[in-house]
């Protein structure tokens, strides 16, 4: 749900990072926070457990500058990936404009990826969205680990609709901005269509 404010001349869009626990969602937006200049970002809010697992959400507001005289703002959210936090995930998905799925490349996490993806499809549907219709990007994270599955194998299992796929090492920043730029563009193109 894009919020278009003609009075303040602002567009606000919401992007949600989804995926299994420990996949690297929080690492993605922390990296974006660290690398963005202070004028373009707000505070990074993390509602996390004492062991740094996301409890409710991470939130980072980004200001991308002007487009056609409108300030363009993106609100980035991550969900808690751990299975039992499903109620919170549903809340975070409300009003979403675009989703990034952060998959964990380790072979041992493939089942968790698949479960999380099914959970995403279900939760979107519950809110009246359809994964096939919304801006969506797949990120294959943790490419640096020795047990990472081949990219083609992962795509075969996780790709849902010919969405853009990026390889990433979020802890080093590789692939993080490529992913963000692509989803942001897709959201703006959707906005252009005017629905």
């Amino acid at each position: 749900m894009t919020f278009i404010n003609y009075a303040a001349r602002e567009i606000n869009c919401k992007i949600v990072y989804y995926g299994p626990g420990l996949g690297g969602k929080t690492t993605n937006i922390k990296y974006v926070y660290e690398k963005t200049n202070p004028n373009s970002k707000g505070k990074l809010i993390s509602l996390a457990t004492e062991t740094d697992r996301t409890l409710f959400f991470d939130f980072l507001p980004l200001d991308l500058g002007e487009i056609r005289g409108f300030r363009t703002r993106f609100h980035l959210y991550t969900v808690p990936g751990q299975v039992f936090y499903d109620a919170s995930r549903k809340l975070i998905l409300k009003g979403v404009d675009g989703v990034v799925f952060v998959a964990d490349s380790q072979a041992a996490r493939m089942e968790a990826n698949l479960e999380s993806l099914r959970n995403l499809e279900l939760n979107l549907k519950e809110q009246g969205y359809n994964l096939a219709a919304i801006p969506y990007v797949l990120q294959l994270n943790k490419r640096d680990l020795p047990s990472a599955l081949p990219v083609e194998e992962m795509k075969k299992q996780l790709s849902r609709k010919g969405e853009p796929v990026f390889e990433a090492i979020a802890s080093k920043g590789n692939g993080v901005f490529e992913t963000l730029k692509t989803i942001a563009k897709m959201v703006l193109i959707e906005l252009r269509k005017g629905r």
Partner: protein
Amino acid sequence: MAGQDLVLHEEEFNKIRDVITRLRSECNAKLIFLVDKNGQQIAASGELESIDTTALASLAAGNVAATDSLARLIGEKEFSILFHEGERDNLHISVVGGRVILVVIFDERSSLGLVRLRVKKGSNELATILDVMMKKSAMPRKAAAGGSPFAEITDEDIDKLFSD
């Protein structure tokens, strides 16, 4: 469809700002703040400098969302008011017209009773304005805005946003 965009035009914005500005002085509050349930700030009035309003909007929405779910879990429709009492400042959160969150921050210059009373009255007024806003949001953008600026967005416009 769930992806209904929210569109705020000058006319409703001004009306909303007038109502919350008046409400703030009636309540003797430090800050009044209107947030969409998804965490987007709609309007604010008061001592804004000291507070990160974007963060406040997102957290207030998260708070209301979690509390709504708690209510349904125990068989309530909603908890209509959230009140957080601090040593110095207090936070009064209520939902207007089922869709928008009204946040009032006040200190010892006001009281919970006064805030409750005034918020109740102001909410009715706000609900009427928000109704119009929702109706306009549901209209095709061209009809509502006299030509959508977004239909004209080019690929270069979008690329420019990312040229850092």
